[in-house]
């Protein structure tokens, strides 16, 4: 008998492009958002077809956690929008665009999806609308009769034909166009771009430029001297098109999935491009002012990054979690009544409760549970216990020792002296001499009340053991939202989920925060605090030193007997021996460390007196703990890079000197060097450097923008450096990488 096919999707994530294949449970959020969009479309299309101004547009932000169903809802709403290319070009409507999928940067989106959805003929028609408007204004000024004006205004007669027949001044009509556009546009950039529409000598030039081609010489002389080659420029160009089409009675509707991807500086970076966000805000304003519609998906925490002005113009609609009834409905969409695996009502309720109504998790749990339960030879009923097994399998690390090992490494790397626990799930970091301590407690998933009660009792026990107890809870597994709140109330901080992403950084920052709270509460005297901190920093440096020594030993071993002393002053020589491309990687990395640490330029302006006004009455604090930590990390990073340079240069020397040596061994040795760098760099808190640099005082948005760009470049330079060096060196040496 064949194993029945699991009906639940392998990857329960929505791509807007293939949305039609999915089923939608009509939750309260779906109903509300659909009504909102339908209401807009009825109103906008009605106005457009009556040739009336659409009036104010709308912006709807659908917000919810990952997997809450935002993209699905967006996909559902997209199906309500008219096609981007209307069936009948003569019938005005709303121009709809959908942005989703692996695009990322707005420039790419603009080039690949937005401008390509428009065509040149329609663009010319839109420009004609403005010409007609300007002609009408002129006819009115000349007190022309209504019989002449009306057909031009209603676009029944081409305005250029009327202008030619009455010998109206084309110059004045074009001046009118400019003035009109300037009246309604408050942004200089946009106004400058729109003035290009009046461009009779080469009407294709502006369209070519909008299609990201290099500007024609005539455009250059009129102030457009660069192609659209950045996100900010693409936003401006699209805002211009939105404005033009919107005011001409063809409002835009734009659906954006995962706004964060468009805004993030790099990959998963939590910081957003300041310029991109500003450009996006401007775009939203243009949409609203021109009767357009924007629907976007955004994580709740991202809303905080919006300016007050933008936030006020956006209707935020959180995606409501699936109720038990919604969950039952969803599961029944996938599982037939006579399926070989069926979910009991209590199992379906367990899925709803444990998933907190998160539809992605619901589907994932269902799929895992199905796989656990399915038997080829008989029909199986799924129970709540099976659901709990599935959720453990998903969230818990295969061995609890992995989690405790990570916690231990964070404590040691940062100099926190701790008591070794018997159970390996509780780490005490004493503070002061009166029993105050920070405890890191590791717990497994809390999937029912009994488990929650056990965890709470342990926490209460720690808190009651002595005065001045701070508890950090690390969850190896899954926490229901309610349980999370319960634990948060007990320990006055959010429990941490164990994941590989940023876990070390987060744990260290929680440790520092707990330490600060104890300090402030007076559980440590000043001297105790200083002593603890000195001990901690000492331990941290010892750890770091041992790490560097280990690295030195590793590289020494890799270099073999030919090597000179590691970390020697011969690094400039080593650098000189490298091929240009490899040297470029290293130079960039050295610059990055300096940029990120900010140490190089730290005191540059400290002793400068202001040109105007009195000198500051209170001197600025010149140094801080963050600075010292940053400087320490920068120094270690610098040393690490020096060692890496030396090792790579030696490897190249060897390969050049002994070309007959087995290529595989040589490649393996290089791989060892690069890997050694990567694993060592991994434990150095690069984020601390970036955080320190980003926390420095800035004077304005431009400076923030420049800093943000520098930071991005620096992080890029250090990320995957080992891999890039390896590839370049192998290419230089004419060796193929190992499979």
């Amino acid at each position, binding site marked *: 008998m064949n194993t029945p096919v699991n009906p639940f999707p392998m990857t329960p994530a929505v791509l807007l492009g293939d949305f039609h294949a999915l089923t939608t449970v009509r939750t309260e959020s779906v109903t509300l958002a659909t009504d909102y969009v339908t209401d807009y479309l009825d109103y906008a299309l009605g106005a457009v077809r009556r040739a009336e101004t659409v009036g104010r547009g709308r912006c709807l932000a659908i917000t919810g956690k990952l997997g809450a169903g935002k993209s699905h809802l967006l996909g559902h709403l997209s199906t309500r929008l008219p096609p981007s290319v209307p069936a009948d070009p003569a019938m005005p409507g709303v121009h709809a665009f959908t942005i989703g999928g692996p695009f990322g940067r707005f420039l790419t989106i603009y080039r690949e999806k937005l401008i390509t959805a428009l065509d040149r003929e329609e663009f010319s028609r839109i420009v004609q609308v403005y010409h007609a408007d300007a002609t009408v204004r*002129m*006819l009115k*000024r*000349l*007190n*022309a*009769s209504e*019989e*002449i004006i009306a057909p031009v205004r209603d676009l029944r*007669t081409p305005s250029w*034909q*009327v202008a030619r*027949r*009455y*010998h*109206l*001044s*084309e*110059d*004045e009509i*074009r001046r009118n166009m400019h003035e009109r556009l300037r009246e309604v546009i408050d942004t200089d950039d946009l106004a400058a771009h729109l003035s290009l529409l009046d*461009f*009779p*000598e*080469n009407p294709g030039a502006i369209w070519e430029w909008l299609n990201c081609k290099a500007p*024609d*010489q*005539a455009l*250059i*002389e*009129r*102030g457009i001297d660069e192609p659209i080659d950045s996100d900010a420029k693409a936003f401006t160009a699209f805002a211009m098109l939105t404005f033009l089409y919107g005011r001409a009675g063809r409002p835009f509707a734009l659906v954006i999935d995962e706004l964060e991807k468009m805004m993030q500086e790099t990959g998963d970076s939590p910081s957003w491009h300041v310029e991109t966000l500003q450009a996006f805000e401007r775009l939203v304003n243009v949409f609203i002012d021109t009767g357009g519609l924007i629907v976007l998906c955004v994580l709740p925490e991202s809303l905080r990054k919006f300016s007050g002005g933008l936030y006020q113009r956006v209707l935020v609609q959180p995606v409501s979690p699936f109720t038990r009834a919604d969950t039952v409905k969803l599961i029944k969409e996938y599982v037939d009544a006579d399926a070989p695996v069926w979910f009991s009502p209590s199992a379906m309720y367990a899925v709803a409760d444990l998933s907190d109504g998160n539809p992605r998790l619901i589907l994932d749990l269902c799929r895992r549970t199905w796989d656990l339960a399915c038997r080829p030879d008989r029909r199986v009923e799924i129970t709540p216990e099976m659901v709990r097994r599935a959720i453990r399998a998903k969230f818990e690390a295969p061995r609890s020792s992995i989690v405790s090992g990570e916690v231990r490494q964070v404590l040691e790397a940062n100099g926190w002296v701790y008591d070794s626990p018997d159970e390996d799930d509780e780490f005490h970091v004493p503070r002061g001499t009166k029993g105050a301590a920070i405890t890191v407690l590791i717990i497994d998933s809390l999937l029912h009340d009994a488990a929650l009660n056990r965890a709470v009792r342990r926490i209460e026990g720690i808190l009651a053991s002595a005065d001045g107890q701070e508890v950090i809870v690390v969850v190896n597994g899954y926490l229901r939202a309610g349980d999370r709140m319960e634990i948060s109330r007990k320990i006055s901080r959010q429990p941490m989920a164990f994941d590989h992403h940023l876990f070390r950084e987060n744990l260290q920052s929680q440790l520092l925060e707990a330490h600060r709270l104890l300090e402030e509460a007076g559980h440590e005297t000043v001297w105790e605090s200083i002593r603890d901190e000195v001990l901690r920093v000492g331990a941290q440096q010892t750890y770091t030193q041992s790490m560097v020594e280990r690295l030195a030993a590793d590289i020494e071993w890799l270099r073999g007997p030919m090597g000179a002393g590691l970390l020697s002053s011969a690094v400039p020589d080593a650098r000189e021996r490298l091929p240009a491309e490899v040297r470029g990687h290293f130079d960039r990395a050295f610059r990055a460390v300096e940029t990120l640490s900010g140490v190089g330029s730290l005191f540059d302006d400290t002793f400068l007196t202001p040109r105007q006004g009195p000198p500051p009455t209170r001197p600025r604090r010149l140094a801080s703990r963050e600075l010292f930590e940053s400087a320490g990390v920068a120094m270690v990073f610098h040393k690490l890079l020096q060692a890496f340079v030396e090792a790579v240069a030696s490897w190249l020397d060897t390969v050049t000197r002994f070309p007959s040596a087995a290529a595989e061994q040589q490649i393996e040795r290089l791989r060892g060097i690069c890997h050694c760098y990567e694993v060592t760099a991994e434990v150095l808190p690069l984020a601390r450097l970036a955080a320190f640099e980003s926390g420095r005082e800035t004077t304005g948005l431009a400076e923030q923008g420049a800093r943000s760009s520098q930071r991005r470049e620096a992080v890029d330079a250090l990320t995957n450096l080992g891999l890039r060096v390896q590839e370049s060196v192998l290419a230089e040496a004419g060796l193929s990488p190992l499979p």
Partner: protein
Amino acid sequence: MRPNPFNHAARPLERSRDSPLRPWDITAHEECYVAVDDTEDKYMEFCTLFEDLSALQDAGHVILATGGTADGKTSLLNRCAAALQGHGLPVGKEGTDPKSKDDSPVHSTVKIVDLSGLRFPRENDSTLYQEVLNTLVSRGMKFSSSTEDTATGYAALSSDLGDMGNYLVVLLPPADTVERVRNYLRFARNRIVFMTESSRGLLDTISRHTRGRPEHFADFLDEQVGRYPDRYLFHMHVGPLKPDDYWKYVKERVEKTPESPRINEELIKVVRDRRSDVTSIGQWRKILFEVFSRNRMDTVDETHFEPYLLFGAPLWKQFMEPEDGAV
């Protein structure tokens, strides 16, 4: 049918209405110029500078006319070309008068190549050069000029012209950019004169940089196109019409045309005030031409101007008719 004072003589098959005056080609056009706005002053300035051909012998020239749409830039340039042509020695049949009043082409040592109606791909000066050469060759002239490089080609052409005792005036399409003017000046050589006018785009560019003050146009252009010891840019700005120009133009044309319908100054003032958008000589002439085209009209009155005063919709029906039928 009475003659239309605003009609210009035309070559067969040519639609005369919209064509600028071209006295180097149709000598009768010389009589059609009326001194409106500053055009006459500019022309006189040009004639003073080029009172004979000596100025052309040792330098290349670019003559640039700037002004709004239909302000008379092309007509002015054509008049300047005719003036240079007039300075040339007559060639061809012995005794041919270069200022002959018949409409046959004038033969002169000053060769005029009219490329003003053509459009050339951007950044392709060599095509333009090739066109100049082809036109001259088609007139029976022989050159040793190389076509490999445009600048070298013009230099060789200049040398050939010197050997033959000829001069060349090239009437170019409107220049879109300052860079284009700069290029023309780069290519200009002894005995070669390029004449071009500003496109709307170029006029916008120049106006933007000079805050729209025509008296600063020449300085701006000098600064932008560069200076050469053996090449010069001569700039003329024309238009718009001044208040008295409307009547002056009508009066002079009507007086020069026997049996023309009568018209009075007050009516012209009414039309001028009502159509305040009409500021160019080209626009004004087109309206007058259409008004005076009516049959059986001894005196022009307000009713004849009514369509252009934008009352009612008497011209409406004509949109449906072919444009040629309107004349």
